[in-house]
């Protein structure tokens, strides 16, 4: 029964925060999303195209962000990386929602021994060095990106399950649920039509807050050389490569690093703001 946030140092309590930072965060996030979608289309280079005349070249009119070690356009690579990193986040979060929401709903709604057992399992998972286990899986079963995404998802569902369970407990005995039950509605019907809509808000908030965690975890694994494979790329891969040449070719670190940091910051800020708006408290206690 520790806290809701695990290995992701983004836990915070209600704080006074001005709306402009949320607007800025939202705007930046849209900008990142937009450039990820459009960037590779408008740039004059292909992601895998090598410019033999410009190996490791600094930013110029020809290459807006410069080129990497084999002469590929860094602007296109960064935008390509944005697509992959955001896709990792999307898939991992989807996986964690697919496990976490039913898990939390079931535990919270059924209560009793089943609830105890299910939440004990979540507790047990919390006390494991999960990211190391993800690495272990990746090393053992090959570097399939989908395995990586799924493994990360299997790691982030714990928070979701706790939040959902807490919310479910809260509304389980609410009047409209009792009323529905009295009218003979099936459990499935109650779960889907009465409970699910009521937990949507908190789930959205914690999903926003989980995205940075996934992105950072991917960069962590890629740094060790166990993540996304070339010629595919991600922010983690680009940052890991950029760190290797941070003195001689700083642009290789600067552009992808900034994109990554901005995205993480924006998601955190936005998530905080949404939480403040909804005035959510932590709901992670058993009983």
């Amino acid at each position, binding site marked *: 029964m520790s806290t809701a946030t695990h290995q992701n140092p983004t836990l915070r309590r209600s704080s006074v925060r001005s709306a402009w930072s949320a607007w800025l965060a939202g705007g930046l996030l849209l900008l990142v999303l937009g450039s990820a979608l459009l960037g590779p289309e408008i740039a004059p280079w292909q992601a*895998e195209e090598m410019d*033999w005349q410009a190996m490791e070249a600094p930013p110029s009119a020809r290459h807006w962000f410069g080129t990497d070690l084999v002469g590929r356009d860094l602007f296109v690579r960064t935008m390509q990386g944005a697509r992959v990193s955001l896709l990792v986040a999307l898939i991992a979060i989807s996986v964690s929602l697919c496990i976490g929401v039913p898990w939390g709903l079931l535990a919270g709604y059924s209560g009793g021994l089943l609830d105890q057992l299910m939440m004990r399992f979540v507790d047990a998972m919390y006390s494991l060095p999960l990211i190391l286990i993800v690495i272990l899986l990746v090393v053992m079963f090959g570097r399939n990106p989908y395995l990586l995404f799924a493994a990360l998802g299997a790691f982030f569902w714990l928070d979701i399950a706790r939040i959902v369970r807490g919310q479910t407990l809260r509304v389980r005995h609410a009047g409209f649920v009792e009323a529905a039950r009295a009218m003979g509605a099936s459990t499935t019907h109650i779960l889907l039509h009465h409970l699910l809509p009521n937990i949507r808000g908190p789930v959205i908030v914690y999903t926003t807050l989980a995205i940075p965690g996934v992105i950072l975890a991917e960069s962590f694994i890629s740094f060790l050389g166990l993540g996304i494979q070339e*010629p595919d790329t991600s922010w983690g891969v680009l940052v890991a490569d950029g760190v*290797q040449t941070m003195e*001689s070719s700083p642009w290789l670190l600067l552009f992808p690093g900034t994109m990554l940091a901005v995205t993480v910051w924006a998601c955190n800020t936005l998530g905080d703001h949404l939480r403040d708006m909804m005035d959510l408290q932590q709901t992670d206690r058993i009983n």
Partner: protein
Amino acid sequence: MKRSPALLVRKLTCVCAIVLGVSSMTSPSFADTQTKSSVLRLANAGEPETLDPHRYNLRLEETLLNDLFMGLTTFDARGNIVPGAAKSWSTSSDGLTWTFKLRTDLKWSDGQSLTADDFVFAFQRLQNPDTAASLAYFMDMLDNAPAVNRGDLPLEALGVRADGPHTLILTLSRPYPYLLERLLYPTAYPVPRHSIERHGDAWVKAANWVSNGAYTLREWQPQAHVALLANPHFIEPVAIQEVYYHPVVNEQSAYNRFRNKELHVIGSFPVGELGHARERLADSLRLSDLLSMMYLVFNTSTPPFDKLPVRQALSMAIDQRILTDQVLRSGNKPAFSFAPALLEGYEPVQLPHTDIAYAERLATARQLLADAGYSKAAPLRLELRHVSGIDGKKVNLAIAGMWQQLGVQTVLQQADLRNHFAQLRQGNFQVAWAGWVGENNPEHYLTLLQSDIGSVNYGRFEHSDYDAQLKVAQAQTSIAARNQALQIAEAIVVNAYAVVPLYSTSVRRLVDPRLQGWFENGRDIHQVRYLSWP
């Protein structure tokens, strides 16, 4: 509830303060390394698995074992083969019996004298099935070695015996002109029988350590250092008294620690920093060619790589000079033959298309692929396996880019060194990057494509004429006759496009400019006993 946390906070603060205080306490400077004139700190490419010369596997262990032990032959400061524990030797006319005269002043580091019996014990221990030495085959030219290693014959059946304390006689099952070179590998080093019989497997612990090289093991702290101390009983005095080998895997970290004067010698640094190093560390920079062959291997047992035209097209589209001059940019030498051009006394056979202009080669390659049935609509798709790391990544990305000009679509698959070669030996690949750091002996490279050599023939290349020609070469006693036969063999393999030679590696080291006695050499071997501070 409001009372007890205050106590806890205070206790917690107390604990934190102590920990923080301890960790920020100052101690003797980390940079005291340059002040002591008898200490040397070197970066090693990684952590050794073992310091038992019979159980070693890796090149980075060879480096350490070279300082700890001395075989019958050894290296001088320039990497030449010179007498080591043996002062002279002679060969019978059939090349099958070698007689080594040992020095009479040989001693183990504990003062006990070292005799020919110790060598007999060591050679037998290497082949003993209980030792489980993975490189036992390095000495399989000794008479009965394979049978002894399988446990079919007793250890005494091995072709090694002592004739008095100072004479060692080796009997071979086939002529082996490169024996003096093969004896340089740790698999032929003596090991201290008296210590092994007393301590068993624990003889390699620093507390029990006994060896016959210029240095002895003082301490091995995994991931931190292997510390060596000068051996007082070595045949000659040495200048450097204390040696620290630090395992440094990360090239950037090695570079930083060298510049911060924490390390005196590093074996590699990020190639992106080469320009900076040339400007600012010119007097420390040492580039040298390593006798080695980096190549692409086709899996000739799987279609379409069983077809000569496909291999030929892919080979012709690779411009080795772009790889070395534009992509790697650190002095690697382009290779056009399977045996390295650096081999002494051997003239390698070059790829048939070496002198044709690149544009013309591309046109021929396109035609070959079109004839083989590939087109824009149905392109050749393949998976290229390579070893992870910046250099490996760059080279293979560039190769994929070159193949793209033929319309070939390449997917890259990287793995760490260990797993990469495991996949290769199992034949689990289509096209793969591979490398071999070998002897100054063309046969050591060419046998990699012999059909019955086993799993090191990664692509399962089979060519009966080639095998026959190799057998012809191996039967020769003189090196000149061997090399002549090997050239004929190499011509077969080059024309069959079994592999694409890429380049021979160059080592980029940084060496403290004040260090004396450091000479570049093709084996990149630098025994500490030849080094000194001014």
